[in-house]
């Protein structure tokens, strides 16, 4: 047993074949410890999203090993990967994070529903979490009736509601102004501190980096340097 939530060992990811092959990751090794707030930074196309997807079991490496909570993801079936994401991870994507036919509250709640949690507890927890992201009033609105920032906060609420071990966010602030970004980061920081939730964010945004405990800098699919904050 280690203190690592995630371990990457010589991970490569090649998209396509032959002449058109893209080496998105070229042998990355890294660890992310429990309770860290890590930012993955680097220019566009350097492989940030790819790295996050591999850790989330949404993609598999061309070679190398991805280990989450001491378990090699390559040994997981699709259903086991789904369950891992459902119960241990929270995801926030850059865009299109919500289900249009569900209200904000239901968008948060369905994760708990999939986990098999009863109606009353679900409702209480979903509203609590929405309250903590400052959206108590918007709970019954549909995504189409929310601003981009509000939608992103609902997505964060959804990612957090299951009390995940690891929260993965891929450029969560891309569509947000600086005030909203700061609010979002403060929220993430407080969760990180209060619950010890490990946070992994891919970002270009220096504002976001300021909140991290460590940054991993990628360039052309390689780790350039790791800076403790």
């Amino acid at each position, binding site marked *: 047993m280690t203190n690592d939530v995630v371990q990457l060992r010589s991970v490569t990811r090649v998209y396509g074949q032959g002449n058109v092959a893209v080496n998105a990751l070229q042998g990355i090794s890294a660890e992310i410890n429990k309770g860290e707030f890590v930012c993955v930074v680097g220019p566009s196309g350097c492989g940030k999203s790819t790295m996050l*997807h591999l850790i*989330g079991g*949404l*993609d598999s490496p061309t070679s190398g090993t991805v280990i989450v909570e001491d378990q090699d993801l390559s040994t997981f079936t*699709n*259903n086991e990967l*789904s*369950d*891992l*994401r*459902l*119960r241990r*991870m*929270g*995801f926030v*994507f850059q865009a*299109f*994070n*919500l*289900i*249009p*036919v*569900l209200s904000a509250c239901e968008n948060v709640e*369905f*994760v708990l*529903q*999939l986990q*098999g*949690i*009863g109606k009353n507890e679900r409702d209480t927890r979903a509203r609590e979490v929405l309250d903590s992201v400052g959206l108590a009033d918007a709970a019954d609105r549909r995504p189409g009736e929310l601003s981009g920032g509000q939608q992103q906060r609902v997505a964060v609420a*959804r*990612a957090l509601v299951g009390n995940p071990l690891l929260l993965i966010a891929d450029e969560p602030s891309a569509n947000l102004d600086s005030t909203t970004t700061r609010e979002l980061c403060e929220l993430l920081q407080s969760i990180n501190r209060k619950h010890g939730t490990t946070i992994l964010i891919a970002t270009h945004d220096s504002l976001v980096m300021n909140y991290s405990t460590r940054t991993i800098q990628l360039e052309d699919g390689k780790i350039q340097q790791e800076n403790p904050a």
Partner: protein
Amino acid sequence: MNTFRLVLNLSLRNLWRQRRRNSILVVAITFAIGGVIVLNSMIRGMQVQMVDSVVENLSGHIKMHAPNYRDDPSMERGFVLDPIRVDESVEGLPVLGWAARITIPAVIMSERETRGASLIGIDPDRELISVVSNFKLEGEGLESTSDSRVLVGRSLLEELRTKLGRRIVLTTLDADGISKEIGFRIVGVYDAESESMEKSLVFTGRTALQELLNSSEVTEVSIRLKTRYAKQEDFDQVRKSFPELDVLDWQQVNPIVAFMYNTVNLVIYIWLGIVLGALVFGLVNTLITAVLERIHEFGLFRAVGMRSRIIVAQVICESVCLMILGIALGVAGSFLIYAWLYDGIDLSAFAEGVEMMGMSSQMKPAIVAHDVLVVVAVSITLAVVASFYPARRAVRMNPLDALRH
């Protein structure tokens, strides 16, 4: 349970989101299902009428002949009637009554014309079980089994160019196979629903006919039950009592009508197949559209940990919900139409063709619960089957590609 609620909730909301497109499909399903059930009920009504009229037209539910009589109907192939044995053989059955008859071919001559027909010796008191008791008569009916006058159908009377009260001569074979010419007075002229019956059946008293033909036998016993169809046990019971006779049901007695009856059964299923087949195409099409416009959404669901199985369940659920809604409306509509047509449709415009099949010119629909259940069960099954391919499309792409879509 939790998951099922979620799936149902998502399905219903997504159906509602595309309510225009989906309601068009529901209307199509409604018409298809409603149409199938209405047509079905008409065909069933037709069948019921076929059976009723065949049973009433002298077949009865159970008919007994001497073996070989049907190959060569004649007095030589009769049997001695033992009324007590017949009564015993039907004990415990829901019997309306039974009648013993002599049915033999005869050549009929009037002063002017000659025709072939069947000469039937009946006991008028026992013919309450058959159409004979319902004839519209001009003149009189037969008085008793020993009445040696004849009832002739209106059409035959016209063909023979003779009249009520005149005499006709019938030539037939007696019990010894010897040709006999017998003169009869026409006591009554009957009108039947069926013209072919009027042309081919001539009735007289049974004992009178036995005397004329030097016989003490009959050629058939016809048993009529109170139920619409005779059960297999009913036959078995009668067969056991009369092992020496052929004990037949209406289908064996009327093979042509039976053939039509059974063909119609097939038609029902072919029709069901065609309509539901067309429906499946519409359904698959709508589902694929619904899936493609939500690939994104399915990707998100899977990225946050929904198993593919649940995505598949969503698509199946949508398909089944659409179908159930269509079925409900279709069944309700068909029952309304059924109620509206309950008193029958006048088919007299096509009376001749209709009559051939042994039906009257009024057609009454009949809804058979079993048919409705089959239609419902088959359509719901098809809804599930139709959703397989679209559901596969929904989970074929990996979640990331779906999200990027």
